């Protein structure tokens, strides 16, 4: 059995309390949400926090998924399974359901949280790609108050985010705009495995034209999990095989995959293009009201 190094344990009773504990205990204190990334790292002693602040008591406060004005608002403590089970999510952003179906397995999805996923900032983390494609924003709170950043700006590198030592992510806001279609495509070595590569596509159609697009890429070293080049190719175009191919080519060209045991970079780059094309086809079909 792998066992963690000694650590102190605190339970946060509110968001303010959690932030207060973070400030009080200093940078060697860490939040733990679902624990599905952090606890394995502790057991492998890759992470040796002095204190762990359990935010599971905040599940009621931060675990909701709702519509607020023209935004879908997802609490940081919503579990993967909550997202997967939410009809309102499925109605507006099927890309999130597509992604959730291929994130880990039911056991992990029952506990793992949306906030934990984004803050873990694993380069192969699926929701970062999906939410970036949707132009979502992250709501971050500290003792000084609340700020929002685009999910695309959240990650500063592998396992690094702009969330400060004494801050926490509280919500994700996804703007709801008309004519949206979205989809997710992932290739994994086995069910429950992290992506070899994955692509999220979102399009907003206006009178037969793609008025806006989001292309998220996962596990292929795309800067900020997105391909802005592919998005630029799509914007203002009527969907066609050629446009999709050009966007896919841009996605493949702009990413920067590394070779590892999941596959050579050349293969991952191929997948970035192939999966972008597949996701786009389904996203466009969905935007056009077809079942896909």
């Amino acid at each position, binding site marked *: 059995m*792998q066992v963690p190094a000694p650590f102190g344990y605190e339970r946060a009773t509110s968001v303010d309390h959690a932030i207060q504990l973070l400030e009080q205990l200093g940078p060697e204190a860490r939040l733990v949400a679902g624990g599905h990334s952090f606890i394995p790292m502790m057991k492998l002693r890759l992470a040796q926090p002095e204190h762990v602040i359990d935010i599971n008591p905040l599940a009621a406060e931060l675990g909701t998924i709702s519509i607020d004005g023209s935004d879908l608002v997802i609490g940081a403590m919503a579990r993967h399974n909550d997202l997967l089970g939410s009809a309102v999510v499925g109605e507006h952003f099927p890309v999130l359901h597509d992604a959730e179906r291929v994130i880990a397995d039911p056991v992990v999805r029952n506990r793992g949280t949306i906030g934990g996923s984004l803050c873990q900032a694993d380069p192969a983390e699926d929701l970062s790609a999906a939410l970036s494609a949707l132009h979502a924003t992250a709501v971050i709170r500290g003792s000084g108050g609340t700020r929002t950043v685009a999910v695309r700006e959240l990650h500063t590198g592998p396992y690094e985010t702009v969330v400060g030592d004494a801050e926490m992510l509280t919500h994700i806001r996804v703007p709801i705009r008309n004519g949206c279609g979205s989809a997710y495509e992932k*290739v994994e070595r086995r*069910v429950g495995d*992290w992506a*070899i590569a994955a692509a999220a596509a979102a399009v907003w159609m206006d009178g037969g034209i793609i008025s806006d697009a989001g292309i998220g890429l996962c596990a292929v070293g795309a800067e900020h999990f997105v391909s802005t080049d592919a998005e630029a190719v799509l914007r203002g175009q009527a969907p066609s095989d050629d446009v999709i191919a050009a966007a896919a080519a841009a996605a493949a060209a702009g990413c920067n995959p590394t070779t*590892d045991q999941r*596959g*050579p970079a050349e293969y991952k780059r*191929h997948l970035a293009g192939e999966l972008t094309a597949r996701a786009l086809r389904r996203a466009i079909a969905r935007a056009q009201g077809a079942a896909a």
Partner: protein
Amino acid sequence: MTDTAVPTSAAGNPIGFGRMLRKEDVRFVRGHGNYVDDVQLPGMLHGAILRSPYAHARIVSIDTSEAEAHPKVHAVITGATLETLGLAWMPTLSYDTQAVLATDKVRFHGQEVAFVVAEDRYSARDALNLIDVEYEPLPVVVDAKKALDADAAVIRDDKDGKTDNHIYDWEAGDAVKADEAFAAALADGGVVVEQEMLYPRSHPAPMETCGTVAHMDPITGKLVLWSNTQAPHAHRTVYAMVAGLPEHKIQVIAPDIGGGFGNKVPIYPGYVCSIVGSIVTKRPVKWMEDRSENLMSTGFARDYHMKGRIAATKDGKILGLQVDVLADHGAFHATAQPTNYPAGFFHIFTGSYDYGAAHCKVTAVYTNKAPGGVAYACSFRITEAVYLVERIVDCLADELGMDPAELRMKNLIQPEQFPYTTPTGWEYDSGDYPRALQLALDMAGYEELRREQAEKRAKGELMGIGISFFTEGVGAGPRKHMDILGLGMADGCELRIHPTGKAQIRLSVQTQGQGHETTFAQIVSHQLGIPPEDVEVIHGDTDNTPFGLGTYGSRSTPVSGAAAAVVAERVREKAKIIAATALECSVDDLEWELGRWQVKGDPDNGKTIQELALLAHSSLELPEGVEGHLDASAVYNPPNLTYPFGAYICVVDIDPGTGMVKVRRFIAVDDCGPRINPMIVEGQVHGGLVDGIGMALMEVIAFDENGTCLGGSYMDYLLPTPMEVPMFELGETVTPSPHHPLGCKGVGESATVGSPAAVVNAVMDALKPYGVRHADMPLTPAQVWMTMQGRPLRTDLAFTD
């Protein structure tokens, strides 16, 4: 699936063979199993092992003072401590030596360097960080193909005069005859096909990792060792021989075991350390390895680089097969197999086909990798052999433009040829191969599948159909040929019938999930007519069971199952004498009706086995020389191996854009003789098929250029889940073994042995339009896609750009 109609017991179980729920599952499904890690003893301490971060490095110094100062640490043991006890090195199952704790050098990533004993496992693990080891890194040998290069670092410089990494060369078959067959084939316009292939290093990966609780009682001098070993008796003897402990003072208890697959055959350094830890601290010491330790350091499997050459006439009659093997044995030669068989039973590679000429040469080398080469459900390397022959037969079919089913049908050994002696000297006991293959083809709807494939191919879709026909050789083995470390491979067995007719059978073999508590009760039931619920199976405790070699190589039913049949027959014969006495007739007047001796022609006049049990313990006066009671014992020395066989067909669909393989169907026809409990047999086949699919598609232990193990967690070492396997379609034929008392052949490994080639053949069949004949396992999406580009990857090394 046919079920033989059998009478049932009061509990609804069959008397004898037939489907019944597993007796042991009552405790398992309720969470009442008792595994090594469940053992809690008063005063028990916990051990943890410090492991090498390097694959090859000289140990400059080890400073344990800080760890020793940890308030909860009771002892820190290093190689130097063990040297004083003569235990720094231990013998392997292949007559090599292996470091228990490294003294001079570390030779693989994850090798054992020091052992901490502390009050709890957290403190033990914490203290590992307090040990300061200074290493001087050395050049590593990672690629087996470079191990014999003149400039390769010498790994085993601990061995006097060792100047290279060579372990052994070994040959089987007739090289001259094989050369002649190849020359003749070419002269007659036939074909010769050559193919290199790797059966990569995999890991048995049982759910329960390896572990022990060692308790050396300082007063009585008795060592009790709870250990999840597949071979408790062999372990006891080896401990006695190696550590010089008196054998009657060693009790090995193998409690419930969560999977073995060969992983739990060897004695690991952690076991020895926990014994030493108990001696030093005078307290019981538990050591349970964690998942990464299991994957990185304990017995791996396979790692055979094979080059095959097959010769055939132009119309597809096979004439000969030659194989060269480069075997990667890691840093210590520790493979588990009978002494006279350094490459295990690999020379059964001629397979299920009838031809006269074959030869193989195996060269084994040291590399900076974990030692092992254990069974892993491979029947002593028959997995590698079957993979080789079944893959190369497909390559031959490709060369000839012949259907692989037709080519196999044409060459299978015919039923009337049994017993059949192969060109490398095995005597196959019985079989009807064409019947099994035909059944599999019929179940698959082979013609229709080929039609569908042609249609799909025309549309650019990739579908593949793969066939594999295997012959296994299990039940090691005849004592005169087979021993492990000098211990002959015969199994003892004891049966006691209590006065009320309830029975206890004591076995030398140890179950790790195979269902022995049910199967062996059914064997006794079959022989004596006692309901299986009235038969208690006792195993896994060396103080309470007779000697035998253990459970691996599918040997339990062929060897111990035969012993159980024989011992029950002895009881039946003794009961006959008692019946004759009680019924006042001659033994010759009696006939056996399941569960009862009765007078011929007067069936009302008889005694049940239960009545006879009571009489055996009663004051009934028995004939001169007949002792009371109804117990018997036996030692079974198998006259030959048993040779189960089967025909497997796999259907895959491949996504050409991503290289993802979907196993759509898997048809498995197995012939293991009569099935004692068909449900258990099917479970064994299911497990083996999942294993085989895993091996073919995802499992591998690769190493990077520094010798770092790249398969050290379940994130990296992928096991298949229910999502990767189809609903299996099982079929059976029954060809009894002529020499086993019940006609039974082993089945534990059949599916693991037979299935990988079917999956790989199916994938390569699907990829035919790309003109590539072979790619090595595992056929991950990346490997399939690279193969489609004509550039399959080497899977034993880290992928590089």
